[in-house]
């Protein structure tokens, strides 16, 4: 199908900009990116283009989540639903992996409970190949997914979390996966695992695995809670917390449990979401863990295989009143433009989703109220959250999905609903957000029991798309209609000395007007995994090209100059520090 001409806000009288109006159509980067076609969506836009279009049906996604909801009201029934963007077959297109829940003693399914692996067919359509790939079934109740190429063979592998164990699926490179959990030693047996993240904590070039374990749980122990005579899910405090798990990648297909040695095993709490990012800019990845009615953790890497929790010193453990909120999802991004990561954490209704903004020291400022996040999220229970520059103006916006856990909430108060709409919050660049409900699209005016959220550019047009899961429902795939309109830079990093996925890399882009910092993080959001490429919006700067600096996880610094906008660039880690001036394809 013919790709429509690029729309642009460029000034045609400007010579530089005139050059920029040339139509770039094919992107060929060593076979990693194929031809894309943008006139995929035959939806009839309204007179004003909605920012996101619900592309689920068009994409052919019919899979449904099954929670095993039962009269026993096991809390796990209300918590699952991870999703991942990943290019499992290396064809340059982001595919989708959905984790299903499972049956409970009295919550049975008429059909087998299966995961889904939707292969991107490049025409806006997807095909479920989970059975063929060997990732359709789990031996446990499924929760989340972390995608990472743990053996650096160029094909992303899958770690699926759940209860009472988790599983590692090795990508064989031929469209299939093999369950190597036992061989690898990463079963995490007996635990209710929620979020997981790949990151190279010891910088040996191999991705290690950290797991957020939630709570002590058993299907043999029924906790009875009710409201107005109606059975409800008990509050999370009825379930004692668990320590984190850290597996060190031995580089030979096996892992060693270093939870004790690293100091993570003593941090007991109800951990859910986590993100790995270099907080103190020392080149070593740190960890932010969102915990549910337990204080959040900010684990600084001490570079000796151990971590130290600095959440209290950083003022991110609790809210301003010393309350450990119900932290579920978390993401890191540079909101205030100081080059340091800031954090968003989703919480329960009445708690507000938190925004912690960095200062020049380790201390964070709680900007939840000033940013207006408090005003928008008072009545919502938040789960997946991700910073996303949806319009590529260079400012990180926010996408959050919500949904309550107890139906009966609507009989007890007038302002909180069981199903809740997602939020698209536009950032003005000065720390204040605006709810884009009216312009965001019909999906933002509907209500869901949403859980996992992943972001990725599934049609490679530079507009970052998104997908979120729903309890006992079909997921929602959102196509971004506006991101491609503004200038953007796409980077796909490939580590050599560093882990191949380049998780932990710090990218600084200079546009002439500003400096934008982004990271390739591990984890992020809730139970979900994201497109490993980075799309950096550069706004209305009408330069054709920009410069970038990459600090690789290994410590190597690479300078890139005159990177063309509105395209993806594959960047391979050099063997030595590379100065600016050399253009990389």
């Amino acid at each position, binding site marked *: 199908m013919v790709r429509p001409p690029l729309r642009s806000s460029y000034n045609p009288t400007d010579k530089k900009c005139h050059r920029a109006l040339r139509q770039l159509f094919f992107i060929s980067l060593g076979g990693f990116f194929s031809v894309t076609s943008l006139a995929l969506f035959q939806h009839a836009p309204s007179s004003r283009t909605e920012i996101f279009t619900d592309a689920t049906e068009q994409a052919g996604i019919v899979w449904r989540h099954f929670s095993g909801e039962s009269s026993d009201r096991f809390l796990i029934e209300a918590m699952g639903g991870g999703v991942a963007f990943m290019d499992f077959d290396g064809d340059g297109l982001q595919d989708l992996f959905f984790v299903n829940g499972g049956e409970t003693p009295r919550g049975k399914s008429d059909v087998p409970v299966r995961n889904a692996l939707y292969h991107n067919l490049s025409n806006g359509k997807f095909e479920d190949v989970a059975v063929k790939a060997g990732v359709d079934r789990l031996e446990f109740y499924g929760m989340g997914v972390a995608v990472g190429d743990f053996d650096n063979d160029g094909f992303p592998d899958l770690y699926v979390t759940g209860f009472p164990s988790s599983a590692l699926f090795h990508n064989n490179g031929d469209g299939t996966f093999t369950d190597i959990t036992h061989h690898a030693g990463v079963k995490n047996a007996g635990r209710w695992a929620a979020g997981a993240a790949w990151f190279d904590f010891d910088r040996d070039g191999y991705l290690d695995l950290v797991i957020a374990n939630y709570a002590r749980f058993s299907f043999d122990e029924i906790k009875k*809670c*009710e409201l107005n005579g109606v059975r409800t899910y008990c509050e999370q405090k009825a379930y004692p917390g668990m320590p984190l798990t850290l597996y060190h990648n031995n580089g030979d297909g096996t892992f060693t449990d270093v939870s004790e040695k690293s100091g993570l095993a003593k941090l007991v709490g109800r951990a859910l979401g986590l993100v790995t990012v270099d907080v103190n800019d020392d080149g070593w990845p740190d960890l932010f863990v969102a915990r549910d009615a337990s204080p959040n953790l900010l684990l600084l890497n001490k570079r000796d295989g151990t971590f130290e929790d600095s959440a209290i010193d950083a003022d991110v453990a*609790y809210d*301003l*009143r*010393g309350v450990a909120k119900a932290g579920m999802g978390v993401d890191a991004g540079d909101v205030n433009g100081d080059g340091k990561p800031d954090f968003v954490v989703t919480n329960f209704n009445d708690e507000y989703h938190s925004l912690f903004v960095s200062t020049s020291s380790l201390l964070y400022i709680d900007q939840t109220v000033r940013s*207006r996040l408090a005003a928008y999220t008072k*009545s919502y229970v938040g789960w997946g959250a991700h910073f996303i520059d949806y319009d590529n103006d260079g400012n990180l916006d926010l996408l959050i999905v919500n949904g309550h856990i107890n139906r009966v909430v609507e009989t*007890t*108060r007038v302002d909180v609903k069981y199903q809740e709409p997602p939020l698209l919050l536009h950032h003005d660049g000065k720390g204040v957000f605006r709810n884009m409900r009216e312009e965001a699209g019909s999906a933002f005016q509907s209500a869901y029991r949403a859980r996992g959220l992943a972001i990725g550019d599934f049609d490679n047009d530079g507009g970052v798309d998104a997908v979120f899961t729903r309890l006992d429902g079909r997921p929602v795939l959102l196509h971004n209609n506006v991101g491609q309109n503004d200038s953007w830079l796409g980077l796909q990093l490939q580590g050599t000395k560093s882990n191949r996925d380049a998780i932990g890399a710090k990218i600084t882009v200079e546009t002439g007007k500003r400096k934008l910092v982004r990271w390739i993080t591990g984890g992020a959001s809730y139970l979900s995994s994201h497109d490993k490429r980075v799309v950096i919006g550069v706004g209305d700067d009408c330069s054709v090209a920009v410069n970038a600096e990459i600090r690789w996880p290994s410590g190597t610094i690479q300078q890139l100059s005159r990177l063309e906008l509105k395209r993806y660039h594959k960047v391979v880690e050099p063997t030595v520090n590379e100065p600016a001036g050399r253009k990389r394809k």
Partner: protein
Amino acid sequence: MTRTRIARPRLRLSGALSRRLCALALLFATSSVLSMSQIISNTKQNNDAKAHSTEGLALAKAGNLQSAEVELRKAVALTPADAGFLENLATVLAMEKKFDESTSYFQRALKIDPQDLVARRYLAANLWQLHRYTEARQNLRILLNANPGDPQALLLLGMVSENIRDYATAAKTLASVPTLVREQPESIAALARCYYHIGETEKARAWLKELQNHSGGVQATLLGVQIADEMQDYTTAEMLLSSVAQSYSDQTDLRYRLALVKFHAQRFEESRQILQELLQDGHKSSDVNRLLASCLRALNRREEAIHALQEAIQLDPGNEASYLDLASILLAEKRVSPAMELVQRMAKAFPDSSRVFLSKGSAELGAGDFTDAVRSFTRASQLEPTSPDAAIGLARAQANAGMTEQAKAILYGAIGRFPEKARFELELGQLLLKDAETGDKSAEVKAEKLFHSALARDNKLAEAHYELGELALRRGEASRALIHLELAAKLAPSDARTHFALSRAYRQLGREQEAAKESSLFGKLKE
């Protein structure tokens, strides 16, 4: 904690009737010029009225107050401007304890003859009975202006002053009429209470000791026990109890009162032993079980406390206090389901009890059932419109249910209506802070003003100090924050939030050691 209270006794006037009867000899005659027929008619009316009045007084003297009232009403109906008849009727009504109506007749009589000091004294006594203390005091001042040494008036003024908590005036006034005070145990008790309040404990004790040999007998001494207990002079209370140990025939009651005093003195184990012995000796009652439950709760033996209260309910299903105590423990133990079952039962059993609906509302709040809590607190308010607890509960329930505007309206109204304004100002301020967090910036300014106003009324409100400290901290004014937070910590040392805020304030000021100490305290208190 349950505190058994005996109703405060009222002063009994003596000799009122005989004095009143003497005054009945005085009659008013009209002074206006009238026609012969009117004169004849008036004369006949007066004679008829006099006859009714005479008959009424005779009936009153014989103790037949109802019939006396009828006759005296007839007298007043015939000659409504006769102050004497009005006073007679007022007196009989007072003796029938119809104080409101009696008061209005005394007032009418005094309008006709403002110099009648006896009527004014009786009016003051009525007003005191009706808790209309300010008016009572006004009338007593008129009396004492006319006759400064009037002992009856001084006695009554002392009692009134004590009621309005002007303990210094009350003590001085009552002490000026010691003979009269000694006549009644209630006035001795009132004087003793005043002395306790103004810090003259020895004088208080001396007066209470007089109750030991009072003609009022054991009951007088027990009144003394009550006062000493109330004023936390437990040694004196126990001493008074032991002084009647031999003479008091109701040993069960004696032991119960001793257990009560020991409970108030926080000697829970000693109290528990007495009560358990009472039960073992077969003296089962709901009061004993309730007090035992309170002791057990204080001793952290909560299961046994619950059991004791269940026993109390079985023994006396009509005593709502047992249910209320049980609901309170269940809620404190976060046993939401049994608490909810209990409050539903309570509401059915006591549909007209404001306290029951208060308890129900609290349970529903704790369970997160906010809309039902709104209904319960609304009912509590309807049953007891003057209950500040019902008003606050309702506002809280509404706020939690998302009915914020209604909650604010309740609180604004309550600030106007109730004397305990500080409490409502604090609550409203906290609600406005939530508004400020979700976008209304002016709400923060209003909230701050309310906290300051609350503190001006009651500077021991730890919560208000905390909120002001928090606000200052958010604005980066750590030094100012510290002033309020340190006060809050002194007033409420076990509030974890305050120590959390203090640690942040110290950190902002670079006082790392103190910050660490507060942080550690916060960690311990949170658990």
